């Protein structure tokens, strides 16, 4: 299909392994993920170098050292998200984080910024590079650019492609493809969303934060519970309604005189039922979102996905989604509901 350096990735065979990549916002969450069957755990430092820069979350160097030891002792991998965009004035914080990752024996760094990729490639040639979802690479032409330039070995796809589009990417690149399987759903192309920056001044790209808690206000008013982000009304809930966190793309707004979830409902991505198709397409890893979530969430979600992945790798044709899995996952889903997102074309 395309001339280039790369031969297509090998097709899924019954013994190809798909890695389960689970989130850890703390050392207890990391241990929980490992104990419940994660192949890889991804995490970040306690600062703006990663896209889940939330108060009380993430790792200092000591916790990370212990986490790496815990995972490596059990032959699991640790991936470090350094997936925000450094600026001239804070560049050295990001390069120092890459140096620390290499020192700590991190198995791969997940990067979005090309400048940082060049730094990592030059300074730590043995360090494995993954292209973050924040890099917004939605086509094999984009992915192959990062591969040719910086030697990235894996790319995480933004949550915007339909299943046939995912297949098309995989068929035209040698880079391993990782997709999101479960968790909070970004409706916008990751890395291309400045909605939070517009409302609060803090963005996923530069600050590692979306709709950050310090700008949130909950207020009981005569017309209901109101949730605001930096003063902007994101939603209002009646007595019988469960008031959700004001993530700004998941509020109810008025368009043309009609009030509804104009961008997206508060819902989670859940692709369990697509697992055989994703496996046949040749994905090499499936990612669970939620570094900001509790160890209990990590335990529940990792357990279900471990079981599902083992089933699909053992008997792809006989794979059936177990109702108990869905029930378990819906308990921890945003809005207690789930969607296939863009994998399912009509969602678009």
């Amino acid at each position: 299909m395309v001339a280039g350096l790369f031969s297509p990735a090998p097709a899924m065979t019954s013994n190809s392994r798909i890695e389960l990549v689970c989130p850890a916002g703390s050392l207890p969450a990391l241990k929980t993920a490992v104990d419940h069957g994660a192949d890889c755990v991804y995490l970040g430092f306690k600062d703006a170098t990663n896209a889940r820069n939330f108060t009380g979350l993430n790792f200092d160097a000591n916790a990370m050292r212990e986490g790496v030891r815990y995972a490596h002792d059990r032959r699991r991998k640790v991936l470090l998200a350094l997936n925000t965009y450094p600026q001239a004035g804070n560049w050295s914080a990001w390069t120092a984080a890459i140096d620390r990752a290499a020192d700590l024996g991190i198995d791969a760094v997940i990067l979005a910024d090309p400048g940082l990729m060049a730094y990592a490639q030059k300074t730590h040639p043995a360090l494995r590079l993954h292209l973050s979802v924040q890099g917004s690479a939605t086509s094999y032409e984009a992915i192959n650019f990062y591969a040719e330039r910086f030697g990235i070995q894996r790319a995480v796809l933004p949550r915007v492609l339909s299943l046939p589009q995912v297949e098309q990417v995989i068929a035209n690149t040698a880079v391993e493809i990782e997709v999101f399987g479960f968790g909070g759903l970004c409706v916008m192309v990751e890395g291309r969303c400045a909605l939070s920056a517009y409302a609060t001044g803090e963005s996923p790209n530069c600050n590692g934060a979306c709709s950050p808690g310090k700008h949130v206000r909950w207020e009981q008013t005569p017309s209901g519970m109101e949730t605001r982000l930096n003063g902007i009304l994101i939603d209002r809930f009646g007595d019988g309604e469960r008031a959700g966190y004001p993530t700004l793309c998941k509020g109810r707004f008025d368009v043309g005189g009609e009030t509804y979830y104009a961008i997206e409902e508060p819902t989670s991505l859940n692709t369990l039922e697509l697992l055989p198709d994703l496996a046949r397409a040749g994905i090499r890893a499936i990612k669970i979102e939620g570094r900001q979530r509790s160890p209990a969430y990590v335990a529940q979600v990792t357990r279900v996905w471990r079981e599902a992945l083992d089933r699909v790798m053992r008997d792809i044709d006989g794979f059936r989604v177990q109702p108990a899995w869905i029930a378990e996952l819906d308990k921890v889903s945003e809005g207690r509901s789930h969607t296939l997102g863009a994998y399912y074309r009509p969602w678009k």
Partner: protein
Amino acid sequence: MNAMNAMNPMKLALGPLLYYWPRQATLDFYAQVADSPADVVYVGETVCSRRHELRLDDWLEVAAMLRAAGKEVVLSSQSLIESESDLKALRRIVAQADFRVEANDMSAVHLLTGAGRRDWIAGPTLNIFNPHTLALLAESGATRWVAPPEMSGAVLAELLASGAPQIKTEVLAWGRLPLAHSARCFTARHFNLQKDTCEFRCLGMSDGLVLRTREGEPFLTLNGVQTQSARVHNLLADLSSVRRSAQVVRVSPQGEHTIRVLELFRESAVGRLAPQEAFRRSAECMVEAPCNGFWHGRPGVEQYVPS
């Protein structure tokens, strides 16, 4: 003021049309642009591959007409590339040699570098936030770059002061801010339609579809798969600080008064209008209240007046 103008002449650019207008309205608009103060004009569809009132050949005709009128013309490419047909369209844009190309996705950068092009523009969606990434793109053939709209003036100045390569800088200084892209079409969603059968409902919404909070405050603008601010990013009052970093200043097309806006920027740039006066006169050209927070390192929605 005049001394600075002599040192740093400002080019005025008209960004790509982000909305979907009927064919004749679009052609009429660019006929006016030919006589406008714009030095640079970006043409082409950047938002949605389903929009087809003008196809690439039509855009090339518009481009040729504008060039004949003395404009520097750039072909803009689509920001979100999803399908093989998106890539085909991109390859056609890269393959033509008559006009420079604005790369709005790394797939375009890959194709342009693969074709050996050394004259392209790195668009505002490439997430260039530091001098190292900017240098990489400059080495790859970019001769101008557009700063991400969320970048503040101070961060931009710092970037340019810290060993940035020889490359021209462009800053978006007018228009509803392009804030996000999605696979989902929010205009189709509003009409309970799917994107694949959207009935082209965005056609003729000259400035998109306003989204308000439940208190009635205009907040965002739905423009198909793109989400914009409701407020109009307006840096007319900040033009002096913009010009300290940027050689090219971009105005984004809107339903009405675009030419007047270009004139206000030109008059201000040549010193015929003081920045505050230009800003004051621009009130009649705005579909919503102004904002300039991003430029001042604040929430983009704010209108910040330095004290």
